[in-house]
């Protein structure tokens, strides 16, 4: 039996009404094809290319163009995008809000990217904030958070969280992308702050569907920072128990809400952390090393197998 035959059978058995069955049959036999996702994909790629092109043009031709032309063009672009969003956007709601049209989310994202470019250009060329220049990032963070919540936009929320990470010192260009010395503590602080924000907003029923983005940022920053601590100090520090605790919390949450992505994070980060400590303890003896990896990987497989069976049985 194939899907079409099954749908016809269910319609005959009156388990599907005729309108429903017709739509599903049309989808199944490809008489209707939704290209919504494709259109969104190309819109997003288009916007990313525009941002990249504008950035490259500014970088390469800023002398020919002059500051006034660059700043006014960038300001005009982001202002137009924001005005459009405020004029066309649906009213604020605590829950999920559908976009008024297919391009809306990307126009807001475009506006935010051009705002960043504009502010970064002004700051690089004029140093308005002097030594406190990094604080302009905080203004951007506040604006992005506001816009993300006002228009229910996941992309802008991701921008807000990564800009906040930049304020903490984690940038793509700097040498501070790795966690060393006090940046490790900054990473932990950043992770805990955004985790608290995410959970708090979830608890007070504001855009509950954003929690996953907060959790993903927090989980990676926290676990990588703790792992770097474990790699440096091995078992003789609080990093190791903290990592185990974080992984256990992730796994527990994952099982509770049945979002198994977090089990993946917990197992991978936890296993790497434990392996760093154990391999250090057995002083890299080849036989013990191989035995350790055989035994522990079999244990993990058994554990995951048990977990997956438990969820199958519960279904």
């Amino acid at each position, binding site marked *: *039996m*194939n*899907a079409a035959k099954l749908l016809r*059978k*269910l319609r005959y058995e009156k*388990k599907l009404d005729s309108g*429903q069955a017709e739509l*599903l049959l049309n989808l199944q036999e*490809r008489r209707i*094809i*939704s*290209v*919504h*996702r*494709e*259109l969104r994909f*190309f*819109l*997003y790629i*288009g916007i990313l*290319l*525009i*941002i*990249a*092109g*504008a950035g*490259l*043009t*500014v*970088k*390469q031709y800023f*002398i020919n163009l002059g500051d006034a032309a660059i700043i006014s063009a960038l300001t005009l672009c982001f202002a137009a995008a924001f005005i459009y969003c405020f004029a066309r956007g649906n009213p604020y709601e605590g829950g999920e809000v559908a976009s008024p049209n*297919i391009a809306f989310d*990307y126009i807001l994202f475009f506006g935010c990217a051009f705002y*960043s470019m504009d502010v970064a*250009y002004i700051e*690089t060329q004029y140093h308005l904030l002097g030594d406190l220049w990094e604080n302009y990032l905080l203004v*951007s963070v506040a604006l992005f958070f506001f816009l993300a919540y006002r228009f229910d936009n*996941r*992309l*802008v929320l991701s*921008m807000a969280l*990564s800009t906040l990470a*930049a304020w903490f010192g984690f*940038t793509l*260009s700097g040498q501070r992308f790795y966690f060393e010395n006090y940046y490790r503590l900054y990473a932990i602080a950043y992770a805990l702050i955004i985790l608290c924000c995410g959970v708090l907003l979830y608890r007070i029923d504001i855009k509950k569907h954003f929690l*996953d983005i907060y*959790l*993903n*940022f927090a989980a990676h920053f926290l676990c990588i920072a703790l792992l770097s601590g474990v790699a440096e100090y091995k078992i003789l520090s609080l990093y190791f128990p903290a990592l185990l605790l974080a992984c256990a919390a992730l796994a527990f949450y994952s099982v509770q809400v049945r*979002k198994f*992505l977090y089990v993946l994070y917990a*197992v*991978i980060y936890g296993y790497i952390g434990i392996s760093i400590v154990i391999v250090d303890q057995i002083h890299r003896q080849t036989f013990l090393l*191989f035995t350790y990896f055989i035994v522990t*990987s*079999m244990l993990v*497989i058994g554990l*995951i197998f048990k*977990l997956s069976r438990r969820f199958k049985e519960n279904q």
Partner: protein
Amino acid sequence: MMVVLYPPQQEENIYIRQQAQAWRRSGLITEEQLRAINDHTDLQLRQTNLFFRLLFLVFTLLCAGAVVGLFVWLLDFKDANFIAVMLICFGAAFYIAAEYLAGKYLFYRHGVEEALVVMAMVLFCAGCGILLSENHLTLTQLRIVVPALLAITACWIYLRFGFLYAAIISIVALSFIPFQFNLSPAVERILLFSVLCVIFVFSLLADKPDLKNFRKNRYAKIQACLLAAMYLTVNLEIPGFSGSIMRDTHVVHLNAQLFPPSIYWSSYVLTFLIPAAAIYWGIKNRKRLIINVGLVMACVTLATNKSYLGWTRYAWDPAILGIMLVGLSLLITRWLDSGVDQTRFGFTARDILKPEEGGITPADVAAALTPGVIETQQPPAGAQEQFYKGGTSGGGGVEGKF
């Protein structure tokens, strides 16, 4: 013996259940109706979710790798022939274990049997490679034999287990072979293109209308991969284009000297023809994946067009391509929305089927990286002053201090 390991009706049932899950997610059917569909699609095969599958895969690979490593270390063989034979034996053992798990315990895309089969493939090919290299095969011969062996093994795994990535590994391994004969670059490309065309024709012949849906779906994916491979073979400016993205934005015309003009300009025409044909064929046969691949190839053609013609690339070129994409997407959306029931020729821009939520999407990651990329694109501070002071803008190099 049947080549395919799993009963076709079981695989079809899995396909139906996946479709039903998508309908439920999109609110097209109720929970009760989903249960009714599940009741009609009896399933004996054991599956697991994507994340558990990944964990099973990673840790089985780790375990199998450690077992092989331990044996090689314990037995301390000095002779390469012994090591090769042992690798082949381990490959065979892992393959038998995978067959056993899939046959007896009905593991289906479970991660464990996949890892065992991948490990078996790698060990078998590595073992054969060592054995052949120890037995007077030249390096050139070895570079042909090992990819061929890998292509055959991966093809067998695809036919037996139905792993799509095995088919892709097979195609990629096969694509290495034409480059090992010391032929001219033009002949290498023609040879590879011909091989890919032959495989594509075979896939078309195998893709019959009365096939089960899961098979049709699988063939569509393979055909999309083959089309992409054919396009990558034909487009001679992709290396130059990627080089221009990484380094500078000036004229990049790297391959013009390597190819005769007839080949070069034929390839230019083909970079337009292949995407156009793919889009046309995809629309005609209503193959969504083929349309998508065709559209992506069309974008790459537009991006490499200037390199082909030897025109100067400018910093704003990506922005122009971006504006074109945005404009086209909006035009198509409006055109589809203005049709009867927001549909034209069976295509609609309505969001009917919702994708599975995985927590965070690649789009979110790209958005998160955007501020960082913007920061790296800033011109250096004070560069303008330097420019005018140094006299680069004119004035015969007279400095400010003069």
